[in-house]
């Protein structure tokens, strides 16, 4: 059945030093990496950060090919960006054909942006490949906790994510069932133009939606009768605790990233 075989997110369930890190450390580091990737402006930094990401991939025992696969969904975006940059950046012309002209600056800038995008995606993929959705949710809730005092709904957001994760397989299973039921009555989900196929999805989506509202209602009642009243006074079964290895890893990584950024601005 569809629902039984899907893996949530991209998580690869193996054991490695990276997998066992505290999710907060990984989230913070991914955030810092993204930020730094946006501010550095030279190839050397990209090279170092690329090596850093590659090193983490090896430590996490994740096949490099598998990590690179995460670039596939943005392939179109990459090509599109490259084409735009190459043709529309003014500068020293190196190739010309009719109204099309390519400038050296455009070519270099296009490549630069592509490398930046790739590194961004690889860094975030590394996070989702080594952290379960539940850990991610936990980590985010902990990290968002300080903002609670300004009315930020940290607990509520985390609870919403948990419930969403919990219900994805259930809803997929249900979609599968409805699809079969509609197919048995002659519905066709596979052929026709894109518009036609989109239209054919209506008899699938409407019951799916109505049922999810019913589920939401039931779930709310079940939660309420188990004394749920939001995050107030709630304790947790799993408490995140930073280990020494977490501190060490975070410190070393931040030191390396700081060094790269620093040298990018002052050394070359």
């Amino acid at each position, binding site marked *: 059945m569809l629902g039984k075989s899907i893996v949530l997110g991209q998580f690869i369930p193996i054991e490695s030093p990276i997998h066992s890190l505290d999710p907060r450390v990984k989230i913070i580091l991914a955030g810092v990496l993204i930020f730094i990737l946006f501010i550095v402006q030279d190839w050397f930094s990209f090279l170092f950060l690329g090596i850093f990401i590659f090193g983490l991939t090896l430590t996490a025992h994740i096949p490099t090919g598998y990590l690179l696969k995460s670039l596939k969904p943005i392939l179109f975006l990459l090509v599109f960006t490259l084409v735009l940059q190459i043709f529309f950046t003014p500068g020293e012309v190196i190739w010309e054909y009719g109204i099309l002209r390519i400038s050296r600056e455009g070519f270099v800038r296009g490549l630069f942006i592509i490398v930046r995008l790739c590194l961004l995606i690889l860094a975030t993929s590394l996070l989702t490949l080594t952290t379960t959705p*539940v850990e991610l949710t936990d980590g985010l809730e902990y990290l968002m906790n300080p903002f609670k005092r300004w009315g930020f709904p940290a607990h509520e957001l985390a609870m919403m994510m948990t419930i969403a994760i919990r219900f994805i397989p259930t809803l997929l299973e249900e979609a599968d069932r409805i699809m079969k039921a509609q197919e048995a009555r002659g519905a066709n989900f596979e052929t026709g133009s894109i518009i036609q196929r989109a239209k054919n999805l209506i008899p699938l989506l409407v019951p799916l939606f109505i049922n999810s509202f019913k589920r939401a209602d039931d779930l709310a009642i079940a939660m309420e009768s188990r004394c749920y*009243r939001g995050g107030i006074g709630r304790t947790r*079964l799993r408490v995140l605790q930073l280990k020494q290895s977490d501190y060490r890893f975070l410190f070393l990584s931040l030191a390396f990233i700081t060094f790269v950024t620093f040298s990018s601005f002052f050394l070359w």
Partner: protein
Amino acid sequence: MIEFEQVSYWYSDVESLLEIKDEVLNSVSVVIQKGEFVVLLGRNGSGKSTLAKHCNGLLIPKRGKVTIDGLNTMQAENLWEIRQKVGLVFQNPDNQIIATTVEEDVAFGPENLGLPMEEIRRRLEEALSIVDMQDFRRKEPHLLSGGQKQRVAIAGVLAMHPEYLVLDEATSMLDPEGRGEIISLVSRLKGSITVFHITHYIEEAVNADRVMVMDEGRMVAQGTPREIFNLRDQIVTWGLELPQVTETAWLLREKYPHLFPTLPVSETELVDALCLSS
């Protein structure tokens, strides 16, 4: 003690703003003593689920009152304590599991109570062992069978250490195997906790201390399983069916009136009675 005093309830029609007084519960008075195993029977639409939702203040009576160990569900400040005392398990196993793993879900209630981590752990282990799901602690709920999911739901309620366990048609969406699991679990729980089991499967009432029957929002009968099963003609008008064993006994008795001075309610009783008389 759960006490219903002349409780009436009707759903109001939001659109017309007029309360349609189509009473789903009609002056129902019920008392459930601590330690009892009570089964409530009734066909679809008889009001039994509405009654269940009154037990922990999910619904508040429109007339009359419900008290749990003296706490009135009408007062909002009591609800927290009431919901700790009365655990509800619902019909659809898919729609009452909140967390992404069995373990997390069972811990959901204790977490809400604000218990320290060690205590949550302890209760988690205890509840999982009662429902015999220790080996599934890390499993995701969608990988479980209906009966297993419902056992997780029961564990989630038991982990809150309630005094009353209310099963609101908890078996009605399960296959026969799943139903069997739940019924045997409930009979194991019998005695250690008050169980109020609401169902339309009459054979689930066989082991009850007391059986109640509802129809059209009213409590129409109360008694031991044997007393209820003796009301053969009325059972049909309430939209229920006699258990196979009892039905067999009735049919036999029509032909051989000397058989069964007392009506057998279980298979062994039927067999014993038949063997003795021959």
